[in-house]
């Protein structure tokens, strides 16, 4: 996705004086960066309406069109676009929150392993679906066994609300994105991102392990 971008050409058009080419460059940037930005913000601010978020992202790219400060070279452009857009989005969202006098949602701070309460809630999901977690589920399973899926969903939704950035990292990895694209989205180095994804999966395991055991 991002790898296919001709960054040098885009950079030339973006910093050039030809306004038509600049508009084209911003449109191409929007086309390529929007999905990742949207996904990141969607995971981060789950309470915000999808259409509002789309609107905010468009506004952020309009800001990119109007900006007079550019990245120093083509190589640093992807990170620059991400940073500028993310900051613009956050500013716009903050304004919207202030306008509606809502409490600003922060990234939840990573805590240690899930509490007993979390595990209890996840187990309750399994029981609610009529599955006894001590009893193995017979195989073969349907593509997504409904009871297990329900249990997994409960655990995952708890995990997502508790660790939105980690949930995003796992989701991006599941999408099959390149490590460089995930690293760009998470604003980390590739090595740190690889480690972060691994640790995120380890953190996720206690939330859903008891559900997935039914598959074994």
């Amino acid at each position, binding site marked *: 996705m991002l790898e296919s971008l001709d960054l040098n050409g885009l950079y030339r058009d973006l910093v050039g004086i030809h306004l038509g080419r600049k508009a084209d460059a*911003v449109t191409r940037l929007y086309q390529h960066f929007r999905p990742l930005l949207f996904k990141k913000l969607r995971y981060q601010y789950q309470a915000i309406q999808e259409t509002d978020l789309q609107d905010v992202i468009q506004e952020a790219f309009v800001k990119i*069109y109007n900006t007079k400060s550019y990245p120093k070279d083509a190589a640093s452009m992807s990170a620059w676009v991400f940073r500028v857009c993310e900051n613009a989005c956050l500013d716009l969202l903050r304004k919207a929150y202030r306008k509606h006098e809502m409490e600003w949602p922060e990234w939840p701070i990573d805590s240690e392993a899930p509490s007993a309460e979390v595990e209890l809630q996840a187990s309750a999901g399994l029981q609610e679906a009529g599955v006894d977690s001590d009893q193995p589920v017979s195989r073969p399973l349907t593509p997504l066994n409904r009871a297990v899926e329900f249990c997994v969903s409960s655990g995952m939704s708890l995990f997502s609300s508790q660790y939105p950035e980690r949930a995003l990292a796992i989701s991006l990895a599941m999408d099959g994105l390149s490590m460089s694209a995930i690293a760009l989205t998470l604003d980390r180095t590739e090595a740190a991102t690889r480690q972060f994804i691994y640790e995120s999966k380890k953190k996720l395991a206690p939330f859903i392990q008891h559900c997935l055991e039914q*598959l074994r």
Partner: protein
Amino acid sequence: MTQKDDDVFNQEEERYLKSYYQKLDQQWGVDPSTSEAQLAQFRERLNQERTKNASWRFSWKFFMTALLAAFSMGLLSSRWIMVPELVATRGIEPTSHSEVSANSPPKIVSITTLEPKAYTEHLIDLTKDAGLEVTVITSGQNRQISVKPFLKGDARQDKAREFLGIDADTIGVVTVILSQPSP
């Protein structure tokens, strides 16, 4: 880092997770690429922005042009208004005095004499019919006399030049300071 991502979950568990995230993304409206409709909407928005910027730039350019035009008109009209006044303050000869004054530095001649009054009267006599204007400022027995304009090659002014002891090619304004010797 040596661990592999798939160390934590087995293949089937990974499949479940992937499936969950796909459903979640669908539910949250997360799409893997930007649709044509979204692109068209953004293009429209960008066009509106460009039009807005262009109109703003146009109004700014218009304002600057108007300002420059007004300034230029002011300059031109001031020339027409000012010129008759300048002509009126100028002098005796058709030659521009101010031009001669502007192109030549002022010359000062200091003379000590027992009879400043007689000296002044004689100087005035010499400047008569020589196209020179004499201004005398008196302070006690001292006098400051301004004689102008000495013009290049004007033979009528030679006597005055000789009397003042200035070079034959002196032009412009000559200031003569007359004073009495101290007792």
